[in-house]
Every structure is written in structure tokens, then in C-alpha cells.
């Protein structure tokens, strides 16, 4: 079943056209990976879905409803969470305050909170600490935890492994695997080895256009295609 559709989406930033005619279908369930080189348009795609940049022309359809004209806050209320590349944690707020802000009622669902503690024990340890004092990995954990503190249908995650230690990346992969059992993840990534361990379906964006879509298993097996689209040597 289709969860999200991007239809002939073009996004301009000031006078520059960054996305050209991006058309993509994200099915419900699992991890959908959007790969691409630096500057290919991956982040712009996620921001356009969230309404942080306005696609014109083109549209974004979520569960059959056109959301491209909605305010970012209304997009979020439809059940879409966003973890930006810079993580977007509020440094002056504690871990508890960061998470409570992401709840609908200002109160935690104990079961969901316990799930977060299981996924990211460090957040429980540093619960009352201000987020600016956390390490990069802990900030990423907090950013992901904030996205799952309420039930969501789709989580957009932008390059979560950037600058993280290998052990943290492994922990993050385990967490994404578990989260994707109940929530669809649209993952933007440059780390192909991380992405292929998680993705079921995938697409490659190049120069603001979708250059390839298919299953991750097929793409992972085709070295020539990887070299052509991502310039991967391994």
C-alpha cells in the first residue's frame, strides 16, 4: 500500500531550481532509502515533504491526501516526524523537556517511554541534562526518540550516521530496524553500507532528479549501477 507519493515535484530555493520533476512512491512499512551524492537534492526532498520548502509545481500526497499546501505544523500533525541532518535538538532544554515538547498532551505514554529507554538507555541516564551537554551520538538518539515518542505513520530521517562513531551507528541501525516494524522510515543516507543493511526499497536522486528506483537487494547486488550513480568504489 502506498503511504507517500511525490508527484512531479519541483522545488526552487531563491532563483535556483534544486529539485526537477521528482516523482517517487514510498510504500507503507519498512525502511525506504533515498541515496545520492552530496548536493543531489536529498535534504531538499525531505524539507519539501515537511513543507519547510514549498514545491511548485508538483505535489506531495500522504495517505491519498494532498499535503503540499499545508503548513509544516499541519504536516507534522498528519503523523509525519522529521529528524533533520543537524538533529534539531533544543540545546537549552533537558532531554525530558525535548521529549515532552514532542508529545501531543504534554504527558508521556509510559509504554512508549519505556520503549525509548530500551532503545537508547543513555537518554534515561542523562534524563535531566540539558541537550547541549550531550555527545553527538546521544543528541542523535534524542532526535530519533523525539520522533517516536508519539505514534507516527512516517519518519523522515536525514543522514543520521553523519559524524557518529561506528559503535553508535550499529546501535542506531538496531533501533531503526525495531522502529520500522511499526513505523515507515524514509531514510536519507550517504553511508551506503548502513543504508543497505536497513533498506527494503530504495531510490537514488542525482542532480535533483530521481535516477533510479527499485529494491535494495537488487541495487546492492549491482556494483556497476552503484558506481554509476553513487561513485562507490567498494
Amino acid at each position, binding site marked *: 500500500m502506498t503511504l507517500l507519493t511525490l508527484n512531479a515535484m519541483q522545488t526552487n530555493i531563491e532563483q535556483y531550481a534544486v529539485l526537477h520533476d521528482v516523482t517517487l512512491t514510498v510504500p507503507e512499512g519498512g525502511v525506504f532509502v533515498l541515496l545520492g551524492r552530496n548536493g543531489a537534492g536529498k535534504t531538499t526532498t525531505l524539507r519539501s515533504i*515537511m513543507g519547510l520548502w514549498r514545491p511548485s509545481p508538483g505535489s506531495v500526497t500522504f495517505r491519498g491526501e494532498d499535503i503540499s499546501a499545508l*503548513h*509544516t*505544523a499541519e504536516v*507534522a500533525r498528519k503523523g509525519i*516526524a522529521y529528524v533533520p541532518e543537524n538533529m*534539531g535538538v*533544543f540545546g*537549552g*532544554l533537558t532531554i525530558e523537556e525535548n521529549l515532552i515538547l514532542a508529545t501531543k498532551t504534554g504527558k508521556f505514554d509510559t509504554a512508549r517511554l519505556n520503549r525509548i529507554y530500551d532503545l537508547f538507555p543513555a537518554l534515561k541516564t542523562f534524563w535531566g541534562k540539558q541537550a547541549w551537554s550531550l555527545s553527538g551520538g546521544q543528541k542523535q538518539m534524542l532526535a530519533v526518540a523525539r520522533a517516536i515518542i508519539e505514534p507516527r505513520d512516517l519518519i523522515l530521517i536525514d543522514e543520521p550516521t553523519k559524524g557518529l562513531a561506528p559503535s553508535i551507528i550499529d546501535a542506531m541501525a538496531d533501533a531503526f530496524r525495531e522502529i520500522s516494524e511499526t513505523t515507515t522510515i524514509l531514510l536519507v543516507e550517504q553511508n551506503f553500507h548502513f543504508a543497505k543493511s536497513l533498506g527494503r526499497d530504495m531510490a537514488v536522486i542525482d542532480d535533483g532528479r530521481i535516477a533510479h528506483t527499485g529494491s535494495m537487494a537488487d541495487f546492492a547486488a549491482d556494483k556497476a549501477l552503484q558506481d554509476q550513480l553513487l561513485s562507490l568504489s567498494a
Partner: protein
Amino acid sequence: MKNLTQILARMGGVNLLPVAVAAVAFVLIGVPSSWVTLTVAGLAMGMMIFLMASGLSLVFGLMDVLNFGHSAFVSLGAFVAASVLTWLAGWLGADSIFLNVMALFLALTAALIVGLAGGWFFETVIIRPVYKDHLRQILITMGALIVAEQLILAVWGGTPMAVPRPQFLEGAIILGDVSIEIYRIFAFLLGLAVYVALYLTLNRTRIGLLIRAGVENREMVEALGFRIDRLFIGVFMLGSALATLGGAMWAGYETLISPSLGAEMMIVVFIVVIIGGLGSIEGTLLGAIMVGLVGNYVGFLMPKMALASNMILMMAILMWRPSGLRPAVK
């Protein structure tokens, strides 16, 4: 050096600055009674400046708006409160403390209402079209300040206006050689009460959490499902109302006001916001108290340097801490 920094941080860090300034002033002034009088005057002045500056700090921090028109609300609050107090002069001079308090209450309430309504108008008509454009913000809000000054001139005239004080706030408390004006104590306590209310709102409520988060990252607050533009207008109205309240209190402190009051206070208010750190209520309070104390001490010790003292203070603090004493965003 690192150990010294850690020890100072444990003792209160930058919060100790006003204490350090007061201690140095005590040695330089040498006369305890003068020092107490100046310190109380500095604290009272600091609290009134805090009222005027706290709203600007939040607006600056949350909305990234350089609002030079903020001080127009200081003038407006002063003139509205002065008019109400003049109109209720009979109550002010009465022996009844109840009538005295009611007159003051009505004057401050009128100033607050004008601040809220004016803030809504200012944000909707003047600020909203120039979000994200600092140059146009400066030009348009400076223009609005001049227009507001001219409107005040047209309504209240150019002659300085005398501001009557309620009877119960007249006079002074005498403690040995020390004389402390009752109005200054009242101004200090009112400023403190507003600070505590703001602190509790920002730190103990969901709306406060949203404001603090919005100061750091507006986009992310929206991505969590909140319409920050609606929060903007609320904060702007609150900030404007605090400025009118500060102006009303300042009118009673000065007892003679002119339409240029806002423009005169603008520099001080911006200095406080900058040295305190953008978007931080704690920083604004600290900055305001520092400005109040330094202004009074220097005015006594070196009267010719009084005007320059705030600028020197700002430059020194910015060289030491470029983001201010207690910025909201680390």
C-alpha cells in the same frame, strides 16, 4: 586558571557580577550610607529597565526581529499611566490607601492594555511583512518609533508632563544615615514579581517550553506540530505590554516625562538585551541590574562618565562573552 573558573562557576558564575560590582563600589565610595542609597537606586532602576527590556529580548530571540519601535511602547506606557494618574489626582492625594492603590492599579492596567493592543497592531501591520529581512526591520521600526513619538507629541503636547505619585509611595524609609525612597522599593518588588512570573511561565509551563524551544530553533518547533507564528503574536503582545508597564513605572520614578522618553531609553534597553544574551530572561535581569548599578555608582563617582559607563560595560562584556552573559542558546 581552570580551577578558579570552576570555583567561580560553582559559586554562581556570572550571577556574582552585580555582587562584585557592588563590593568594588563599596570600597571606592567609602561612605556606607551613600553606598546603600546608590545600590537601592541602582537595583530599582535595573528592575524598571528589566521590565522594558525583557519583552524585547524575547522578541529578538524568538522572532529574530530587530524592533527599534519597542521603546515607543515605553513612551506610550508612561504617558497613558501619567494621564490616568492625573485624571485620578483626587484619589492619589486621598488619605485612603485603598483609593491610592486603586489609582495606581488602574494606571498600570491601562498601560498594560494599551501595550497588549498596540503590540497586536504593531506585529500584525508593521512587523509581519518584514520577517526575515533585518534591513527593512530596522528602517520600518525606526520609522514607527518616530511616528509614535509624533503621535504622542500630537496627543499630549511637547511640554514635559508632570506625573503625580500615589501618596503611599511618597517619602522615604530612614534607617540610621540611610534614606531609601519608598517608590524605589516598590519598583524593585514589582520588577522582581514580574521576573518570577516570567521565570515560572517559561520554565514550568508548556507554552514557556515552546517559547524557549522557539528561541533556539523555530523550524524544528513547527516540525513538531506547533504554529510558531501564533506564538509570535502572543510573545510580541506580552513584550509590548511589559514595555508599557516599564514605561509607566519609569514615569513615576522620573515624575516629569517628555515624548522623547522612548528614544532616550532605546539605547539602554538594547544594551541590556545585548549584554544579557538574546532570548534569555535571566540574562536580561542580570544585564539590567548591572546597568542600573554601574550607572548609579559611576554617576556618583565620576558624573562626567555616567553616560559612557553603559557603553563601556557593554563593550567589556562583549569582549569577554560575545554572546552575552547568559544567552538562551548555547
